[in-house]
């Protein structure tokens, strides 16, 4: 059940109705979440249950052990190791085994025949990268004493499986979400209006804008050798916008659905298309996952506490791991490395005072350079192979000619999108539906309904579902 399908909205309407009528709202949401997950592939529900129960039990046990006791400390470490092993082991098995075997064969460490014998063809369970990291963060937080163990197994199951964000985030932290579950909320008027607004805006971003851009992006990246360097550059901008609207559209809908159920989940995007430097981008793109890597990888590695070289190393490791999190392919590692490198260079320039002083000029230069860099880096993200990515880079760098061109109207579409993005940030339009009167609300709903009716595109799957 995809968020852009009629099936999902029929399902959600029933859940919403029952949520308002039945007293056992939390139980309803657990059942609805598991039914939602089962609609993709029923056996994988067991995997979700396993991951949840493992971390619930470990969290419970960790809470019972005194943190300061030396004997208990060993036990606590063992429990944390068990959680890491169990969760990352499952993730590794489903997502990375084939990749590792292929690379072992490529470097000659394994004969091709033996690798084929070891390989088990599996379907990647949907959302596994998201919920695995979510449950892991809970165990680590309990281990660190940052959060208390959840007492109710039902509440914990809901924390891990809450269907608006189960498949592609935003990644929740137990300390933010479990207290909300315990309060068993029902939204007020403001919450409902915010929820309606977020759902419509998210759906519009996905099915009108992202799917619209997918049309040209698919065409360009299917045959990069036939397009000119200019067309590939525009295509990479289009892909940058496509992936942003696709993923942020999903996240926005997730927040809207949660609001309609009375819950508040964090923003996953903070205007990343308008980032003027790599730090702003890092803070604006896939925020909850970026924070996860910051809190559970970058900082444990030492963060920025060990001097320039160590900070650079930690940034590179974190970004490359972030890239690899997306998928078992070197193209994702390359994308992570490019972003990490940009961040390292930016920090070095900043430390040496070689950046333009803050002001309009630096903002203008940043607004020109960052989107260009981000769009170019997404070529690595989108290309089917490293070789294909380099073909595209070479054609852009040499400003190659090609028999196929892209309509200039796509440039207009990009300009309009960036303009709207800027206006949204400038006037902080989110939540406006709750602040205006009914005539303006009706106008907004009319625009959205007609826009969706005319503009809905190809029905391409959500890009981040593959991760």
């Amino acid at each position, binding site marked *: 059940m995809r968020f852009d*399908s*009629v*099936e999902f909205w*029929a399902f959600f309407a029933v859940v*919403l109705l029952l949520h*308002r009528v039945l007293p056992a709202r939390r139980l309803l949401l657990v059942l609805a979440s598991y039914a939602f997950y089962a609609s993709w592939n029923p056996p994988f529900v067991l995997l979700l249950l396993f991951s949840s129960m493992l971390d619930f039990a470990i969290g419970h046990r960790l809470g019972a052990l005194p943190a300061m006791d030396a004997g208990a400390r060993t036990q606590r470490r063992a429990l944390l190791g068990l959680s890491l092993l169990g969760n990352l082991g499952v993730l590794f098995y489903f997502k990375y085994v084939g990749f590792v075997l292929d690379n072992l064969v490529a470097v000659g460490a394994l004969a091709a025949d033996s690798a084929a014998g070891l390989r088990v063809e599996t379907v990647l369970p949907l959302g596994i990268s998201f919920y695995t990291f979510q449950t892991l963060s809970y165990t680590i937080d309990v281990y660190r004493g940052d959060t208390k163990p959840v007492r109710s197994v039902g509440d914990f199951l809901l924390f891990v499986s809450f269907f608006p964000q189960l498949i592609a985030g935003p990644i929740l932290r137990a300390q933010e979400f479990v*207290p*909300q579950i315990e*309060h*068993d*909320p*029902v*939204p*007020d*008027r403001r*919450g*409902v*209006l915010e929820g*309606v607004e977020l759902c419509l805006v998210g759906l519009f971003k996905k099915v*009108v804008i992202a*799917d*619209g851009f*997918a*049309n040209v992006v*698919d*065409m360009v990246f299917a045959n990069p050798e036939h397009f000119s360097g200019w067309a590939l550059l525009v295509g990479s901008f289009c892909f940058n916008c496509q992936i942003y609207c696709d993923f942020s559209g999903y996240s926005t809908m997730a927040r809207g659905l949660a609001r*309609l159920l*009375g819950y*508040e989940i964090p923003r996953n995007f903070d205007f990343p298309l308008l980032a003027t430097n790599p730090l702003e981008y890092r803070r604006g793109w896939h925020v909850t996952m970026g924070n996860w890597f910051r809190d559970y990888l970058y900082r444990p590695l030492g963060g920025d506490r060990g001097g320039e070289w160590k900070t650079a190393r930690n940034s590179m490791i974190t970004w490359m791991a972030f890239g690899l999190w997306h998928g078992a392919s070197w193209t994702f590692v390359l994308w992570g490395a490019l972003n990490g490198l940009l961040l390292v260079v930016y920090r070095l320039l900043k430390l040496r005072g070689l950046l333009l002083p803050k002001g309009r000029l630096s903002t203008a230069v940043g607004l020109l350079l960052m989107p260009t860099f981000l769009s170019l880096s997404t070529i690595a993200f989108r290309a089917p192979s490293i070789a294909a990515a380099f073909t595209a880079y070479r054609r852009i760098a040499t400003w190659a000619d090609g028999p196929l061109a*892209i*309509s200039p*109207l*796509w440039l207009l*579409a990009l300009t309009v999108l960036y303009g709207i993005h800027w206006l949204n940030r400038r006037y902080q339009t989110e939540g406006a539906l709750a602040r205006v009167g*009914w005539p303006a*609300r*009706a106008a907004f*709903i*009319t625009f959205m*309904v*007609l826009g969706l*009716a*005319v*503009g*809905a*595109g*190809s*029905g391409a799957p959500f890009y981040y579902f593959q991760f």
Partner: protein
Amino acid sequence: MDLHPAPRADARQGNRALLVCALVGLVVFVGSDALASRSDWLWEVVGRGASGSENAAVMLEARAHSLAQEPPLAALVMGSSVADADFTERALAASLQVPPARVAKLWMPAMSDVELAMLAPLVRRLRPERVIVPASPFVMLGGLRWDRTRAYAPEVAWRLFTPRELFTDRVEHLSRAFASTHVIVRHRRELRRVLLGDHRDITALPPQGERPRVGEQIHALERARQGDFRCDTVHVRALEIFAQDVRATGAELIIASAPMAGRSLAGSAASSERLDACLESLSLAGARLRLGRDRPAFEHDDFRDLIHLDRAAAERFTRWVLEPAPNAGRPPHAL
């Protein structure tokens, strides 16, 4: 973040706001459909945006819209390219002694009987005096392929498919049912193509599944074996439902066994007899059957290819179909 649950009064206000939003959305959705489907401009734009066989359903619907503005038809021929090739408007008009404007053909390349049944609501709108459908052994061939099904009507689907089939293909049914409720949703590709330019440049034309081709039916017939022709296919069920729906409009339905060239199994006497037997066994709500065994002979030279008659043969076939029934005066089949 306020972690306290909303007081009951606040929750009631929230529910009221949700209800109003849903109502506004519903009014916009229903109202825009009502306005758009009556708009000649929309149909003109949709017609311009549609081209080629891949948009045959759109063109068919646009043609039906323009026919609906005219006086009721004396005869409406519906079906695949066989319906187009095997019937001529001139012979139809002459046989019925009406002006040519009072006869029409609504056809799509490789139209299946499931698609035919899904188009039954159009018959309700057009209110013709009679509907003529050529029957061929295709009705007894194979199952349903959603990527080849270009028409959908929820009220027909509800009767045509079993609950199990509806549940198994629920994604397909729900999305098609939704699209069928709103004319703009259904024709947004054509609208965008006209309003925004060529689809390769600007519109969000979805990746098209493989579309039915005219030659495809011929290949299917050439490959078919005797055991492939069955009288329990979804298309046979669809033909029964179509007959019921046409009957409900008060129109006469004529189902005529279309000739096939004898070079294939489908064109053999055995297949023709099997089709006759199948049609006679169905509950066709009083439809008049023109069976293969009563049909004049058609030679190889009468065909353009394996399944389509040439023009002269089509005139003869059309006249035969509209001749008074040989069993006139007897009770209709399977009432």
